[in-house]
């Protein structure tokens, strides 16, 4: 767990946020993340995020489900416990299709959901640092990492010039840890990890 230093800019309006994101990127600052109350169309492109590979993962989970269903049912009804059901053949493919479909959907849905949670670092009993208490309520929050090539004061001035309504500096964990949002977490609050900055 590495703690890093961040400059947090808080915006009131997406119309201000959007050009600000572009300007911050053009100036070469490293955007850690942008938190918005609703999905802002085109923000991922503006931030330069790469295309997600979640759908590839979903396809692989789906194929796994298809194979699991077909191979298990074939094994059961062909070799392990063949039954005569209405005089149908022992490998009745049409009868297997609905279950194969269900397992494909189940595997890909559950698998994609868990992958999504992992990628976003959202899980039950897992906590992440919240940069602004209203970041998912009505404020648009842009978090910029302070790297060895930039300094906090400079970034603050820049954010003020692009229209941030509220600017502050925070030292925070980048990752997740065991904890709950509805309880005060003492582990990292009491012992901040040494800074790498």
């Amino acid at each position, binding site marked *: 767990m590495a703690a890093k230093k961040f400059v947090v800019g808080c915006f009131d309006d997406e119309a201000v946020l959007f050009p600000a994101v572009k300007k911050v990127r053009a100036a070469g600052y490293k955007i850690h993340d942008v938190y918005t109350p609703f999905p802002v*169309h*085109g923000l991922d492109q503006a931030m330069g995020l790469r*295309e997600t590979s979640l*759908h590839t993962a979903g*396809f692989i989970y789906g194929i796994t489900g298809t194979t699991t269903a077909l191979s298990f049912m074939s094994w059961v009804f062909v070799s392990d416990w063949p039954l005569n059901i*209405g005089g149908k053949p022992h490998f009745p493919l*049409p*009868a297997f*299709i*609905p279950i194969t479909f269900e397992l494909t959907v189940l595997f890909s849905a559950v698998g994609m959901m868990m992958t999504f949670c992992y990628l976003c670092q959202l899980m039950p009993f897992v906590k992440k640092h919240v940069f602004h208490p209203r970041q998912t309520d009505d404020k648009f929050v842009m978090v910029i990492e302070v790297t060895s090539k930039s300094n906090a004061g400079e970034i603050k001035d820049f954010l003020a010039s692009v229209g941030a309504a509220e600017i502050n500096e925070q030292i925070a964990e980048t990752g997740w840890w065991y904890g709950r949002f509805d309880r005060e977490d003492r582990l990292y609050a009491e012992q901040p990890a040494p800074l790498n900055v």
Partner: protein
Amino acid sequence: MKDQFVVPAKLKTTSFVLMGIGVLTLLIGLVALGGEHGATRFWAGILQNSTFFLLIALACTFFIGVTTLAHGGWQIAFRRVPEAISMTVPVLGGILFVVLMILVFGEKDGVYHWVNAEHVKHDAILNGKSAFLGNTFFTTATVITLGLWIFFTIKLRNMSLEEDTWDLSPETGRRILWRNTVWCGGFIVIYGLSVGSTTPWLWLMSIDPHWFSTMYSWYTFASTWVSGLSLIALFVIYLKKNGYLSFVNEEHLHDLGKFMFAFSIFWAYLWFSQYMLIWYANMPEETEYFKPRVWGEWRPIFFLNLIINFILPLLLLMKRDTKRNYTSVTYIAILIIFGHWLDFFQMVMPGSVHELNFPWYELGIGLGFVGLLIFIVANQLAKAPLAPRNHPYLKESIVHHT
């Protein structure tokens, strides 16, 4: 910005050449397909093509209807394209009406067994169905459905053209939305009661009059709907590649691609729903439809149909990049339209012609219909600006982002 389509000479020539091929095939068919059995193939080929092309043109009216009722904004930038395609409904409807009347009153009992009164007398099942599969009901239902389709198609098109002459104001916007919603609502009800229910039973399922399936109409609908969407995509890409439709970009293409992907799966779902129940129950009066198709000489077509219309679109359109690429969507759209043409081929032919021939005749007639379609659509597109400029959702469509 090029907003007014001018029919290029090349497109006009292409459409005339295709129509020429169609007429030539018809004449060759008239000579080559003489005799008792040949005449059946002659009429079955025309029936297959005229229903198929009429229903995919009508699917474009349906596209306007559903997107309007769903208050969709993304399609407004290219709404003139489905409108132009839907304007082939009056012509194709007229052709189909003539064909059906010849089949029924000319007693072409090779295609429709139930038009032969002598035959019906000795057939208990056909006798029992004679109120439904009889000349009177058939003609009345056909006239009413075709009339309503043509009426609503022309109405929706004329409203859209008329709205271009209005002044741009909030009141105009509200009026456009309101009257489009009302008329599209009316059309959807008619469409549901015809294509979603009785019409495919009368025109296509009655080729196998002893057999029935309640899934059949939905199956036909899914087939024509996905082909209609592919046709819209093809014309949108054509216009885009020629420098028109400057408001349309990959985002709109992506959504059309998603529709093609989703409704290919929907078609497979309905195909399977019809097949599996019949397979499971295994009752002779139901399995007779699938016997020649699955175990007879139609077996290769039967599986080719599944591969082209389900497996290939499923795998090819799954990736985001293929849906956003003009070239790949073009090829897949052509594949889907051909696949569903083949689907109609295997719906019509086994019950009428019985044996499987290389479909030179059916393909030739099909190309003729394609030529006619291109000709009418191009002329209709040239009639009005390509963007409905007063539509309140036009801006939403321009900034559309998937």
